[in-house]
């Protein structure tokens, strides 16, 4: 659009400035790979603080990025347009997850407005989205709202936010870590809250499902992680990694939890350290100090990958030794997700066996989309 004195439109110019500002002040909370029949998924779904859920195609990003880089050093990364955009929530979107697979895959999101919403992934990918800037072109098939609590004199609490989601496809349930220090189990079919797990003393940050034992594990701001039994909604075990050491208030929250494939090992990020637990033995095996508070952690084979409030991605072994640290541009990353591309033909064959593509996202995703390829040997 051309703005000059010949056809001056001040309103639209103001809007364009504010739009640009909005992009500048955006935070990406979660980036995950979309499921696909291809073992080497190409689409990333990104949840950001402006309430939008957008999907990007990696290959097009890379090609644009690379060519743009060659043509000019100051390539404007804002030009990468998402494939599709959904207006997910009022306020931030904190987590997105895919439910099920195949034709009926649902894209679930939760956010600051205390809602869990689900869309048919097929609808999103298929729609050509003429009004994609608004993002309302696909109607959600699931819309769940956290209950409000009634206080003294009938005062209603603000709707607590949902900070994380866990999916149990077999039972047809969604577990949500909510801001009122409870975890909720929602039934996908009926849309009702089946169970409420209450007991934490502060709001929940993260939640994972341990399906082999029909348990969920939640991590909270109060510095404890709890293991809950899904049948009785009772707390089975309280893990308090920092019980003995009295740290300052915000260093002690459990910000992330991950289970390994065998579901025997649990790692939780707690302040500036990761603690590794053996679940059958319920004992802390090792404590790994990290350079900054961990914000997301993930198991990869027998290694632990961690991102946090430092511009690095760290790789540890199970004993807590640092295997490598990879620099990434953002100061702070909220999300890490795995991308197995072992059999990807588009990459050179020389590194096809142990490849993983790590995707880390943080503030201002559009400026700082970085794809790091790490070779683990």
């Amino acid at each position: 659009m051309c703005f000059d004195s010949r056809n001056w439109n001040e309103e639209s110019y103001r809007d364009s400035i504010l739009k640009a500002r909005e992009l500048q002040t955006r935070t990406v909370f979660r980036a995950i790979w979309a499921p696909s029949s291809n073992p080497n998924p190409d689409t990333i779904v990104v949840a950001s603080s402006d309430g939008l859920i957008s999907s990007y195609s990696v290959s097009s990003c890379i090609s644009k990025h690379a060519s743009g880089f060659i043509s000019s050093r100051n390539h404007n990364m804002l030009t990468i347009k998402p494939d599709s955009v959904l207006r997910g929530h009022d306020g931030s979107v904190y987590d997105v997850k895919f439910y099920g697979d195949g034709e009926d895959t649902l894209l679930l999101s939760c956010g600051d407005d205390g809602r869990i919403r689900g869309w048919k992934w097929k609808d999103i990918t298929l729609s050509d989205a003429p009004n994609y800037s608004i993002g309302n072109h696909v109607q959600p098939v699931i819309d769940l709202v956290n209950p409000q609590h009634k206080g003294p004199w009938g005062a209603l609490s603000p709707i607590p936010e949902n900070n994380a989601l866990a999916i149990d496809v077999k039972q047809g349930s969604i577990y949500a870590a909510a801001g009122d220090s409870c975890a909720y189990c929602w039934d996908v079919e009926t849309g009702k809250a089946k169970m409420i797990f209450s007991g934490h003393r502060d709001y929940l940050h993260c939640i994972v499902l341990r399906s082999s034992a029909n348990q969920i594990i939640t991590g909270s701001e109060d510095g404890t992680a709890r293991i809950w039994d899904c049948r009785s909604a009772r707390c089975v075990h309280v893990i308090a990694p920092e019980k003995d050491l009295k740290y300052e208030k915000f260093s002690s929250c459990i910000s992330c939890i991950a289970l390994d494939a065998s579901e025997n090992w649990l790692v939780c990020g707690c302040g500036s350290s990761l603690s590794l637990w053996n679940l059958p033995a319920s004992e802390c095996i090792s404590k790994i100090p990290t350079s900054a508070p961990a914000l997301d952690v993930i198991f990869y084979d027998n290694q632990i990958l961690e991102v946090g409030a430092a511009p690095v991605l760290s790789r540890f072994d199970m004993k807590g030794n640092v295997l490598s640290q990879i620099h990434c541009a953002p100061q702070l990353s909220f999300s890490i997700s795995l991308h197995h591309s072992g059999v990807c033909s588009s990459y050179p064959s020389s590194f096809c066996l142990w490849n993983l593509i790590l995707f880390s996202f943080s503030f201002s995703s559009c400026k700082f989309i970085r794809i790091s390829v790490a070779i683990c040997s």
Partner: protein
Amino acid sequence: MKAVEIDDEIEEGMVVDEEPNSLPNYRLAERRATGKSPYEMLRASKISVEDIVAKILAIKRQDLPGTHLRELATQVFLHFITLRQVNRSILLEEDHVKMETERAKAPVDFTTLQLHNLMYEKSHYLKAIKACKDFKSKYPDIELVSKEDFFRDAPEDIKGSVSSDDTHSLTLKRLHFELSQRKELSKLHEQLEQRKRSLLHTLANRNEFLSSLPSQLKSLKKASLPIQNQLGVLHSKKLKQHLLAGLLPPPLYVVFSQLMAQKEAFDENIDLEIVGSVKDAQSFLRQQANKESGISSNQESFMLEDDVLDEEDDRQRRRKRPKKVPAKENLEYAGFYQVHPLKVMLNIYDDEVSDPKAFKLVALRFEYMLKLNVVCVEMEGSDEGPRYNILCNLFPDDTGIALPYESSKILVGENLKFDEKRSSRPYKWAQHLAGIDFLPEVSTQLKNQGNSGDERSKSIIAASNVSLYRQQNRVETILQRIRCRKKAQLALAEQLNTLEKLKWPSLNHMGVPWALHCPSCNLQSWSLLEFSSNQSLSFPVVETKHVQELIEAGPHNKSSNNTNEQLESAKEDGELPSLALVASVANDVKVTLRGSSCGNSKQLVLMSKSISPIAKVKSFAFKKHDEDLDILLDPESDIDEPTQIEPEKESTNASLGLKLAGDSWIECGAREYCLVLTRKLHTNERKVKLEAKIQISMEYPVRPPLFSLNIAASSGESRSGKFQWYNESRAMEAEVNLHMLKMVPSEQENYTLAHQVHCLAMLFDHYLDRAYPSSGRGESTSIVDVGLCKPIIGSLLTRSLRGRDHRNIISWKHAYSKQT
């Protein structure tokens, strides 16, 4: 066939004719009776004679008795007789045929003769016709009135009774008519000539009178001047301005006329004046005219010159001003920057005040660069120097540094940027105001001499363009924008002044939460960091090599601390690279030095600290970029080594600090300030410091100031605390830079900065109240999350944090996010 028949008839006729007197007929009859033609009979006789002779011979040879000889001889004689007879009849017949032929020949000869006669006659006629046709009249090219006119106009005595078929007489009559008419006309001509002569005579008389008139009028005018001045009627001044307008180059003329039209039609509160030397303008005009056509400029301008010269003389007499200055100026501005001697001055007054002598907002001077074909604008009386230029970015991407048109760029050649030292700038809006985008290249004064058809079409195009120009409301838009800009800048200056005195800027509007909030933190410092350089624009692509040089310069500068001596050395070192590379970052170094003149060494340290991270982050980002590309292209490179984490927590604002090259025009004229808010914590006597770098662009308030926040860690904080602050400052940034702006009413937008500062202070207080609840304040504004006040816990807990990023709950945020 017919001829044959005719022949037969003739023969028959002749046969009939000859019948009474002829022997031959008898012969013929005889012949017919015998049935043989004479020739046959001749041949038969001859054959029989030969037979008989042969017989005789045979008899003789054989000596047979000649008994038959006699008989044979008789027969021979008989045959001879027959032969003779036949011969005679043949001859007779021949005669007869000859006679017949003779007789038949006579009529043939007669008819042939007749034919020849006719042929001759015919050719004679043909010749006569041709001669007639070829006849040329003596006056072949007499133009006659057309037939229709003749029949209509000719008097009866000439027309007579003529039919249109009789061309000859018609022509004759027309000729007569023509003659009579021409005679009349020549008579008329003579009459008119006579009249003309008489008129010329009277005209000469009158001219004489008129030529004596100007001097009378002039004396009258001179006599009226004091009265005019006394009565306040600036008629003559206006007149002079209009005369001068005629001398303006077309773009300036458009500026003048359109602004004047706007003023007169819509009562715009503006003043217009043409300044400059008239003589120069005229000599320039003549020069150009000479150059173009070799003919000196038209008479009108000479007359005009006389008139104006007179006034000029008057003025000179009054002022006794030496006339050397403009000439000198002309010399100085030679080359590309040659300026037309006439300029248009525009005074813009505040339009909201009803008082006719309203507050004068700005005075602009428009000038026209001849070679470059651009109109430049200058602010009169702006003493802040060329950098502080409120006209820049009046419209997006219009810094006035680059030349607006490609053609002029080509003219200047490689040297793409406009002379920095000149305070007048070729803004794009000025070109639009002057209509350079549609004006023809030819100047108005030369139009009269050009061929008319071409000019007419050009002027038609120009006229349609002018109507488009009016439809686009260019004049109104630009005046509006200049007024808004100036007012905003005045308001901004007022706010900056208050802030410089370390006072909270006042707010008039109370309808927003921060207006009611009484800040409990202190405004510790307010300082100008950077006056964004214009030079950076001309080098948008900074090469990495330069940046690396800069990194070396950066820490060096940082290390040079407190003592003045070291500062001096830093100055030298700092300016060295700025000579080599004129990148934007080099300017940071300079700015630091400017800050040094303020004297406060402590402040300086703070600033140099806060600047160098920017430079570093920039370079860091470039390096980063490189690395990542490497990773993409060559995944096997050894990036797998454990990398060191730089303990550089100040550079947290990388995402905001990084500027995109495409938007580099935004930085033109932008200023960056550093605001420091502090608050003492009651618990442990520590101070928490919030450092905000505020970038205020020229487009304020349309582009609101951009805050980048940094909460300085006080001693003894753990890493996680820093993480917390990082998040928190990001959240505050989002509030201050974006969300709160939606709450500021539009009539308050000139005070956006004050609102933002207040809002920031409120957020900072709010944040500290949450983070250190024992600091003993602000409980009243917090909200109680009833979800957490269950009897299990037993105490009334206020919930302060929310979300994955530990964001503080801002109670009013949701209230207005639903509004918008």
